[in-house]
């Protein structure tokens, strides 16, 4: 069944898009991430312009992270104070990202920047995750403790001023790294159409030593608010959010996530991280391939205006 998308200006098969929503939702539920880094490339692949894909996916991630946040809220497994601190910088990051997105689009370099950001972020983060989880798997094989977290150890980050105490997470850290992380997540989220969950969770664990109990719930609250505001900002400045496309993706996404979450709970933590690392890394390589290999068509068209 074909449906015509009013903003993307092309007809798509409803079941194909719904299926994509389900598949990405399944993966996002399994790993506790938004899944934007998979959804945006998939939409581009079926012919939706990168700009519309990035802008629309933000609303899709807002929906799936809201579902997640509610269930973590019920279990009291989120740190609102930490999320709000991250958010105060995250909003600034999102606004900066949306502004840069508009500028790059005018310069014809948006696709390149989206591609390069994907390659860099995904291969680096994916590689680190694979390395870390392989080590964890090896340690369990040898019979050692599986966790890498050493509660007593301090890094230079803990020496920074403006310290704050986050009761729920039981941490006492400087506001500077919290703001820096918040800004970065908001910024890359707006440019790349990702919620940044797969970036934020490791950052919170490694840099701020947030305990695993609250980290995913907190990350989801942040993702929810940055993505909801990215939706509003993209709609207000670039008029690129396709509500019809978003609706189909959301419905598929929230259903898929429920089944994914069940699978995820049955798997061991380090195995799950290894799988996610491989997935992230593979998507990164896919983008690298596209940038390096000579494109089939060197020419492309971009709509400038009417008249």
């Amino acid at each position, binding site marked *: 069944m074909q449906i015509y998308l009013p903003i993307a200006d092309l007809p798509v098969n409803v079941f194909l898009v719904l299926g994509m929503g389900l598949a990405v939702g399944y993966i996002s539920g399994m790993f506790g991430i938004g899944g934007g880094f998979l959804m945006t490339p998939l939409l581009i692949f079926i012919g939706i312009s990168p700009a519309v894909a990035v802008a629309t996916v933000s609303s899709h991630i807002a929906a799936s992270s809201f579902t997640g946040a509610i269930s973590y809220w019920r279990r009291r497994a989120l740190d609102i104070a930490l999320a709000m601190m991250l958010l105060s910088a995250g909003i600034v990051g999102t606004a900066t990202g949306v502004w840069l997105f508009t500028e790059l689009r005018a310069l014809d370099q948006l696709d390149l920047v989206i591609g390069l950001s994907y390659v860099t972020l995904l291969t680096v983060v994916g590689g680190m995750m694979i390395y870390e989880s392989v080590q964890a798997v090896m340690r369990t094989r040898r019979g050692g403790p599986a966790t890498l977290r050493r509660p007593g150890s301090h890094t230079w980050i803990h020496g920074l001023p403006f310290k704050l105490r986050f009761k729920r997470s039981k941490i006492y850290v400087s506001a500077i790294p919290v703001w820096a992380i918040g800004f970065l997540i908001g910024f890359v989220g707006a440019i790349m159409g990702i919620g940044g969950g797969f970036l934020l969770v490791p950052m919170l664990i490694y840099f701020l030593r947030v305990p695993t109990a609250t980290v995913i719930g907190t990350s989801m609250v942040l993702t929810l608010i940055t993505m909801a505001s990215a939706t509003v900002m993209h709609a207000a400045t670039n008029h690129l959010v396709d509500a019809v496309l978003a609706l189909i993706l959301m419905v598929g996404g929230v259903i898929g996530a429920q089944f994914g979450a069940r699978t995820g709970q049955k798997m061991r933590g380090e195995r799950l991280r290894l799988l996610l690392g491989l997935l992230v890394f593979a998507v990164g390589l896919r983008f690298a391939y596209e940038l390096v290999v000579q494109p089939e068509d060197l*020419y492309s068209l971009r709509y400038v205006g009417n008249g």
Partner: protein
Amino acid sequence: MMRRLATALALLFVACSAGPAAAERLVVSLSNHRVAVTSNFVGEELVLFGTIEPDQATGQLRPPYDLVVTVTGPQQTLRTRRKQRVLGIWVNVDSREFVSVPSYLAVLSNRPVAEIADQETLRKLQIGLTYFLLPQRIGPDVADTVTDDPFRRAFVRLQRQQGLYRESSTAVTFLTPTVFRTAIAMPAAVPTGTYAIEVELFSQGKLVARTNSALEVIKAGFEQYVADAARDYGLLYGMATALMALLIGWFASVVFRRD
């Protein structure tokens, strides 16, 4: 129609005896003047019918005729970009802006336009994708370049791939020497706006008659509502979309609640 034809034939007979002194007149009719883009729109085909009649009572018909139908969509400005390898990766380096070119351009004829008239005539009348004026912005000036300019060729090729530009030398069919029909294909990605239809009749390489018509492509119903809202009320539209995301997220957590 039959009576008209009969009259035409009768007139032809009269005209033949009167000597060659007159011009033809085109009468065309379009199956539909309005294409509505709705949520299940996957493209549409319009049919244009027409007859060739003598201009006046003493007019004379001079078959065989050649016919060219040119359909042009609302004007757009588009940028054609060319990728080049920079430091190992492919980057958009060079670009040209095509100013006020038709968003849709179909050239339909009964045989290749190059056989219908000479180059000079085709260029003057802008008939065929090769001769249609596609102005580019070059520095402060706006001008069309030579027809084999690489950017122009790439532009036409990309537009053809989308089904937005087309040239068909078999699209016009003569049912009788003076009655013709043609199909105008509108792809799903067709832009909205007013389309001009120019019908040009040739006889022995010379333009002998022309007429025009128009059609309108509009977004209808829900599609129109969403597109208008996104353009005119961006902020409200964004808030509504974000709210929809929250509602669906909340709804899912209620439906799938397990504790």
